[in-house]
């Protein structure tokens, strides 16, 4: 039951979550590691997750956002859950053969989006709270209401963060 539920969640959200992480981080290897950690934490906590005031989609985005916060705050961000999984199963999540091909394909795709590259670099210089709302609003096309749910903030706070973030971004460009 848990496996089936997780399997559905994984299939439905993996690409979206990887995309969200990659759009913010801009690095394939780090995005892959954070995506792994996100889904492992989702798997570990799926039993305790209850559909109360938040949908599965927002819940997964929230985990991914928290993992990215940890990545940005800690220089030595560690893959705790992923390492536990590798130790317990002997299963290496990273396949070196496919990694290089995927990385190249993604880098080629990124090169087609010059404006995104320029804006993404500038956004990374903003405070984390501003980065989060701008990335969710303009990279992931999420509404203010959805962003508020994901970040567990009030809609007014999200609007304010977005406004101030754009002001700061404008001064950088």
């Amino acid at each position, binding site marked *: 039951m848990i496996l089936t539920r997780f399997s559905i969640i994984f299939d439905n959200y*993996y690409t979206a979550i990887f995309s969200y992480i990659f*759009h913010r981080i801009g690095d394939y290897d780090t995005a892959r590691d954070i995506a792994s950690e996100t889904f492992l934490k989702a798997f570990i906590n799926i039993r305790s997750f209850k559909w109360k005031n938040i949908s599965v989609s927002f819940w997964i985005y929230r985990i991914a956002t928290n993992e990215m916060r940890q990545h940005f705050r800690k220089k030595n961000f560690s893959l705790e859950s992923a390492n536990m999984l590798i130790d317990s199963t002997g299963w290496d999540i990273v396949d070196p053969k496919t990694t290089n091909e*995927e990385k190249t394909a*993604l880098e080629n795709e990124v090169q087609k*989006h010059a404006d995104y590259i320029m804006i993404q670099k500038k956004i990374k210089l903003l405070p984390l709270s501003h980065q989060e709302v701008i990335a969710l609003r303009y990279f992931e096309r999420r509404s203010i209401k959805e962003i508020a749910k994901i970040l567990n903030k009030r809609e007014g706070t999200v609007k304010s963060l977005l406004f101030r973030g754009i002001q700061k971004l404008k001064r950088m460009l």
Partner: protein
Amino acid sequence: MNTDDLEKKLENLSTPEMPPMAHQWQLKLAILNAKKSARAALWLMLIPVIVLGSGMLHSVLNASIPPWSWMQEYLPQLPVWIRFGIFSMIVIIIPLIAVLLNLLSIIWLQYDKTKHILHISIRMRPVNIIIIVIAGLLALLFIGHTIADYLAGTG
């Protein structure tokens, strides 16, 4: 650039699309495998191994070793169909469950509806494969034995 222009630019910003990634499959297999089905299956396989091992020791050493000695003591009191059921459970059904659990832990199937392709991923994990082979052989041996017995009895 003023705020409106920047907002407009951001609204129309085109972001990179994610190509299909093998990492998705690898990660999913790894997470689902974490249920440690191999360990559970190993315990399942131990049941027939212990029963048959004690039976072999009994015939070689002529010693009363459980669980074989218990079976010798209590099984004859039961009707034939119950005896057959218990025997089948120990030497056929339990090993087959071990095979199934291990197969499920190393095989992942997904049907790509858009391309009409069935993806089959098999993780080459020695522990699981060894359990599948041993438990499978054990079950096959006794299925063969049961069929042979049946044919000899009716022939």
